[in-house]
């Protein structure tokens, strides 16, 4: 457990510094949100209607951005071998990496989501739910993306492979989250979507470390 803490702190420091850390994802997020009204026309009521959904979708894409290299660098510079011979199994190493990724980029993005939605004209009452969806969804995105990154280890076009593996897995939480937000705004039942997303997130956190551990072992062989 102590070793896990040591590793988590290191991964957090690395994720914070890697390629601009949270700034890269936040900037990408800002780009989408700023450009969207220019592309979709200026009618404020139309923007306001799709604002939470767009803020939520852009978040999923921004999360994908910094995931590609999650394992790649450790694999290339030999750190993965060191991590494989430590006191914690590779599954725990993968959990630490994904958690750090979530804390360094997912959480800042979740805090930026209400700002973005507000800029697009969404109603204020939806903000708490948007932050909650973004936090939970971000956790699922980090673990699913981590699995994609681990499976793509050692391949030449890793980034492409990560996107292809991960996109179908990103679809359910995007649907559930958008469903919850939409239901909440139109005064319908919204807990169902949120519950489904929580369940999906729990499943991802529980299962993907197994896949990541196996994929890392396979890449080292």
């Amino acid at each position, binding site marked *: 457990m102590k*070793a896990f803490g*040591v*590793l988590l702190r*290191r991964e957090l*420091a*690395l994720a914070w*510094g890697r390629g601009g850390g949270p700034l890269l994802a936040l900037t990408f997020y800002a780009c989408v949100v700023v450009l969207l009204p220019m592309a979709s026309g200026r009618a404020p009521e139309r923007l306001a209607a799709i604002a939470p959904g767009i803020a939520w979708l852009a978040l999923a894409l921004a999360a994908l951005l910094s995931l590609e290299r999650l394992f790649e*660098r450790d694999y*290339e*510079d*030999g*750190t993965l*071998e*060191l*991590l*494989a*011979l*430590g*006191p914690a199994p590779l599954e725990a190493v993968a959990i630490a990496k994904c958690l750090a990724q979530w804390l360094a980029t997912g959480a800042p993005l979740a805090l930026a989501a209400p700002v973005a939605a507000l800029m697009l004209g969404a109603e204020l009452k939806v903000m708490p739910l948007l932050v909650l969806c973004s936090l939970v969804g971000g956790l699922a995105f980090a673990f699913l993306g981590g699995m994609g990154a681990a499976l793509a280890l050692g391949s030449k076009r890793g980034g492409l492979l990560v996107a292809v593996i991960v996109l179908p897995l990103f679809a359910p939480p995007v649907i559930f989250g958008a469903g919850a937000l939409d239901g909440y705004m139109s005064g319908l039942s919204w807990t169902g979507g949120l519950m489904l997303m929580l369940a999906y997130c729990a499943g991802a956190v529980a299962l993907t470390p197994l896949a990541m551990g196996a994929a890392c*072992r396979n890449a*080292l*062989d």
Partner: protein
Amino acid sequence: MLRVVLIKDLAISRGERTLFSGLNLTLNAGEAAALVGRNGAGKTSLLRAVAGLLRPMAGTVTFEDSSGPVEADVARAEQLHLLGHHDGLKASRTAWEELRFQALWTGGTEDSARAAAKRFDLIRLLDLEVRRLSAGQRRRLALARLAASPRSLWLLDEPMAPLDATQREAFGVVMAEHLAGGGMILASVHDPLPIPARLVEIGA
């Protein structure tokens, strides 16, 4: 503390090609073995197989301590250092951050990391980013983790290559001390090790 490493009938293949087969080697406490052989003979693969990173095609690697056989996963997680071609250091972090992490991760302490840095003449370099270090300095930083956390089996892949003559000698002293304390060393080399070591030819 491991007492014996037993390599029995080991065969390793990469892709379709068999690198070597039928390799037997026993390493006892206080012994060093130097793996020699041409490039691509399988020295690195053997080290990685002992470390459990690579699945051998046939044969077994077993570990024993004073009370009998030790489960391989436990031995590898607690008693084994592997230093490969890559130093496993992040260019953007300082030498101290990296050494401290490597020591803590492999079971050492901050104090032991500090002592190891002194041992390898790294104190002046600790505040520098790894990217600013020369190849030899980087290797010394990687070697320092051997001294920073007490693990009994050292698997070294060309450990001396980037070191200058003085540093080779200094590392020789560290290795000799490790052996005197009951440790074991398995190293792939092209130049002879500065300590008495059994020569094992791979892929002859």
